[in-house]
């Protein structure tokens, strides 16, 4: 079939002239990296800034930005100022994440690579960072493999493993609510490992799995799964779904009035998700990886004030992840007195974060030969209203990650160091 190509509005001459002008401007613009300041230490952060994980990704980069500002105010890293280069990895496109990682490493010559919220992208980026021998910190990607079966000497992780999260919340649930559990699990690696961890932890305490469903990512309507869940007659329905899926599932569960018959709970929860729920749906027992309302823990208020000043809102766990990641780079380099990845990595083995970074009741230590941060886990309940408008989570009990984590052998991490 032939169609008339719509007649262009601009004629050819004008187009060519304007194209040349645009082209010249582009080439002459800052895209052309001119003399790079040799005395700036660059930290590259490739995180989702668009797509479903944009809110988490953004908050992590903001937390990291705060860390960099504080570091620079205290004299920088090894006497040199630090600069944070932020790139959008997108929420799911591994190609872009890899591309940005390579860009940061090859073109921008970063000394440290940070990222990613999306576990799969974190793994893809770890492939690049290991290939190039760059120190890589994963602030908020949860799949166990990052410090487990796919661990590398140069990759460190701030947030908890799914196994740790499961172990933390299981005890509270079995003690308070019963032994029969139904699982609503997102169908991807993170969901699978989280469910496996929960089943194992709950079984150890005498609970059993009476049924469950693997829900596709991006499921809009959870009714069929909720109908099935209710029919199985459990004591607790465990929601392992995250982000928008969690929003949909919980909203719908509360509309069905399920919380009146069965207890709703889950593992990892984010303040960003609770905020997105209507007040009547802010319920359930969960584990958070960091929470702002910690009376009696020093330095937390300073962090809250700093983040509030920057963003106008209370910090979430994601802000804290990014903050820790940024500071880890500086502290590791200071201890190693070097920027070389191998030296910093060695310096970070069993490294304990100072209290003003750890911001929790327990110590925060990067466990040796696994590079996994062992900090505090907070088990609690979502609430519609707390002591302040943003106080949407009531902490019932805290756990020390080091006490409940699997051993390094059990995690499957066999770390090999370059000679």
């Amino acid at each position, binding site marked *: *079939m*032939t169609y008339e*190509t*719509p007649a*262009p*509005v*601009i004629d*050819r001459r004008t*187009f*060519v002239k304007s*194209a040349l002008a645009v082209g010249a401007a*582009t*080439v002459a613009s800052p*895209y*052309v*990296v001119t003399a790079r300041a040799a005395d700036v230490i660059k930290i590259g952060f490739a995180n989702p*800034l*668009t797509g479903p994980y*944009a809110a988490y990704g*953004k908050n992590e980069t903001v937390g990291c930005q705060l860390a960099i500002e504080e570091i620079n105010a205290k004299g920088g890293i090894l006497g040199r100022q630090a600069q944070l280069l932020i*790139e*959008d990895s997108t929420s*799911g*496109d*591994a*190609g*872009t994440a*890899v*591309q*940005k990682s*390579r*860009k940061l490493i*090859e*073109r921008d010559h970063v000394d440290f690579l940070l990222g990613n919220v999306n*576990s*799969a992208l974190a*793994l*893809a980026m770890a*492939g*690049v960072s290991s*290939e190039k021998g760059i120190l890589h910190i994963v602030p908020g990607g949860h*799949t166990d493999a990052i410090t487990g079966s*796919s661990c590398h000497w140069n990759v460190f992780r701030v947030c908890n493993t799914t196994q740790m999260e499961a172990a933390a919340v299981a005890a509270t649930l079995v003690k308070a609510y019963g032994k029969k559990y139904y699982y609503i699990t997102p*169908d*991807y*690696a*993170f969901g699978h490992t989280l469910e496996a961890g929960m089943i194992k932890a709950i079984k150890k305490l005498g609970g059993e799995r009476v049924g469950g469903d693997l829900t*596709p*990512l991006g499921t809009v309507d959870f009714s069929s799964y909720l109908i099935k869940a209710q029919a199985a007659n459990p004591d607790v329905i465990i929601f392992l779904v995250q982000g928008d899926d969690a929003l949909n599932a919980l909203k719908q569960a509360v509309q069905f009035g399920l919380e009146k018959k069965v207890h709703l709970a889950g593992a990892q929860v984010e303040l960003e998700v609770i905020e997105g729920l209507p007040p009547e749906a802010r319920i359930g027992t969960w584990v958070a990886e960091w929470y702002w309302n910690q009376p009696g823990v020093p330095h937390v208020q300073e962090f809250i004030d700093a983040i509030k000043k920057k963003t106008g809102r209370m910090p979430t766990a994601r802000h804290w992840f990014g903050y820790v990641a940024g500071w880890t780079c500086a502290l590791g380099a200071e201890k190693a007195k070097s920027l070389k990845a191998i030296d910093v990595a060695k310096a970070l083995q069993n490294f304990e974060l100072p209290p003003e970074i750890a911001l929790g009741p327990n110590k925060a230590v990067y466990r040796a030969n696994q590079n996994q941060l062992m900090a505090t886990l907070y088990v609690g309940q979502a609430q519609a209203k707390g002591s302040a408008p943003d106080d949407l989570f009531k902490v019932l009990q805290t756990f020390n990650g080091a006490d409940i984590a699997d051993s390094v052998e059990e995690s499957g991490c066999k770390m090999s160091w370059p000679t």
Partner: protein
Amino acid sequence: MNARRRALDVAVIAALVTMPFWMAEIGGYTELASRILVMGLAAMSLNFFLGYTGVLSFGHAAYFGLGGYGAAMAIKYLGLGTLPAIALGAVVATIAAAVIGALIVRRRGVYFAMVTIAFGQVFYFIAFRWSAVTGGDDGLSGWRRLPIDFGFATLKIEQNDKAFYYFVLAVFAVCVAAMARLIASPLGRSFVAIRENERRARFLGLDIERRIWLSFVISCFFVSIAGGLYALLNNFIDPRALRFDLSGNLVIMAVMGGMRSFWGPLFGAAIFVALQDFLSSRTENWMFLIGLVFVLVVRFFPRGLLGMLTRGAAA
């Protein structure tokens, strides 16, 4: 006009052969150059169907992705070398294209486009859900590109970005040369005839459906090779490579560069990839700007860059 075309061919070849060297000067990096080649090949393959045969497919990403998954799985599960892996991906994707092409070849226009989109999504879902094999949403990782052993020499494409770029360039050159040959052949001429006036072509005795099917399959074959290269480029493949977003991006590359010109889609790919890379570093709202580019191209530059510059030249 022929001389002008020759000059353009020479200029493009020269630019591509030397790209890793001048890329860094303008703020690029070798990997970006490889990416431009891969996307350029994909866009040119799509254009074989879209620009030369005149049929709108919005589902080419499916075959791109299949080529990628085929290659990745060949390396991960079967331990094949680089070239056999790409070949396997191409075979799988081409078979799929042949089957689906046969199903949809009677439709045209908007309906054909919709159906290509919908079938593309089928593959996306298979990749997404069959996580035991494809890795699901997490994608297929845990493999890397391997050095290519030619017997007399080894090309270390797994470590050396420049080596990989030249490997990609070599594959690109072979594919592009093949495409050019096909377009100049009687078969290729018949595709153009179909594009220009399908009814007349039918009256001339051409079997339209069969030729469109053939054009579709050939186009998908080349796109799947690009997909295999894409997987190697990232050492990773995930379902995003199959989504209709990518299909849309390939179409805009072809349009932006000029659908009626041979090298047009390569230019379109270069502009699009570089623009996206540039914009997403500068601002979080780059999606808005990219969307704006789509809109502006359609409204003001529908003939694309090369289309504008080579106005009046025969296709």
